[in-house]
């Protein structure tokens, strides 16, 4: 195994296709998960019971091993891209649901009361006060979810979902370390890139007034 051998794998015509499938699976899963988790979090925000249920469902969901979820899609949905997408979406929901629910809950009552006293309507309070204040926490959930989904999408190969995991499996089956490491290094690089990208987005999304206090809190 030589570095040139690894580079040769990256130069294969199929490589961009595998990378694209991996990114597609991950982006769609996180996107759909946001569309499911965020409305649920908004719906339960004024009910303590609903909030508790959402957080507990999220906590249990987060404990489900990713391989278990992907493998379970096989007997019920079959092989391929779509079953992998369903499993990865289910995997992406819990972190977003937990953070969106807690983020909205932790907007202090005094702030909301003050806004109400200033004559803002409930929808204005949500759009101009609650969502901007909760945005960093919500986005932190999206980031956790995205990094986790990019990692778990590697396992989609086991149920025929494609992606960069294909290279790792091919490397193992052929006993070819160059293919194995090309797969491992590209997946690792994609995960780290996702983390860095979402970290930067998270910082950009934090309202200016919150930046200082947030830094203090997360010391």
């Amino acid at each position, binding site marked *: *195994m030589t570095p040139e051998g690894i580079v040769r794998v990256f130069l294969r015509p199929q490589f961009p296709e595998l990378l694209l499938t991996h990114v597609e699976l991950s982006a769609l899963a996180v996107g759909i998960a946001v569309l499911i988790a965020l409305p649920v979090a908004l719906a339960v925000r004024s009910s303590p019971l609903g909030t508790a249920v959402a957080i507990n469902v999220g*906590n*249990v969901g*987060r*404990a*489900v*091993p*990713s*391989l*278990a*979820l992907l*493998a*379970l899609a*096989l*007997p*019920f949905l079959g092989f391929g891209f779509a079953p992998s997408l369903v499993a990865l979406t289910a995997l992406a929901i819990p972190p977003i649901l937990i953070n969106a629910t807690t983020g909205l809950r932790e907007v202090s009552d005094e702030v909301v009361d003050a806004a109400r006293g200033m004559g803002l309507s409930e929808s204005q309070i949500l759009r101009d006060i609650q969502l901007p204040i909760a945005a960093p926490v919500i986005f932190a959930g999206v980031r956790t979810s995205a*990094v986790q989904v*990019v*990692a*778990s999408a*590697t*396992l989609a190969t*086991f*149920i025929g979902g494609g992606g960069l*995991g294909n290279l*790792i499996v091919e*490397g*193992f089956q052929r006993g070819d*370390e160059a293919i*194995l*490491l090309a*797969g*491992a*290094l590209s*997946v*690792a690089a994609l*995960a*780290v890139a996702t*983390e860095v990208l979402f970290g930067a987005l998270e910082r950009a999304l934090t309202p200016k007034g919150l930046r200082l206090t947030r830094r203090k809190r997360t010391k």
Partner: protein
Amino acid sequence: MEFVPAGFVLLQQLEPRIMDWGWVRENFAEDVLPALVGHVYLSGVSLAIALAISLPTGVLVARYRKAYPPVVFLAGLLFTIPSLALFAILVTVPGIGIGPNAVIIALVAYSILVLVRNTVAGLDSVPPETIDAARGMGLTARQILFKVELPLALPVIVAGVRIATVTVIGIATIGAYIAGGGLGQLIFDGIDRLFPTMIITGAALATALAVAADVGLLLLERRLRPWARRAGGQG
């Protein structure tokens, strides 16, 4: 030819395909139980090693703050690497190869971030007044660490152990791909043989194990909170 309603044929074909309890009964002692025991072993050994590394490291970097950012950065980088990729990299390292050792090394690596971070956060949460009072009572630095700081930091440390345990139990399933054994073996065998019963058994047990560990450690964490202890009325 005997007439059989189509729906009946479908049901007969589908039912054993989804969950064959007979298989579970017949193979419980031979396949299912060893996989479960192997899984608990892999996770337990990894967590024990990770704690033995992380607790002293956490105490050290809580003291020497300059070392904290690089340690957390490195551990965070390791944590971000997808498990199948880390397994693939580890098996190419001479002297490791496939098998439980590579799995345990990866599981330890994944646990260090959260364990070190929570140890430091736990030690930070001890009020300086408490440490001053302990010093005023004549306790040595070592006594303050073991009798004051660590006990007060324990709930936060246990919270870290809880996250690490759930993570480790989940990732250990993937370790079966590099011959690490455990419940993932049932899942991968089930996929290879297109036998849903094995997939569902492995996946359900791995999920149950992770959820049970999560809930169990959460209860322990709550018991360890000083206010919970006071409310419970016991010392």
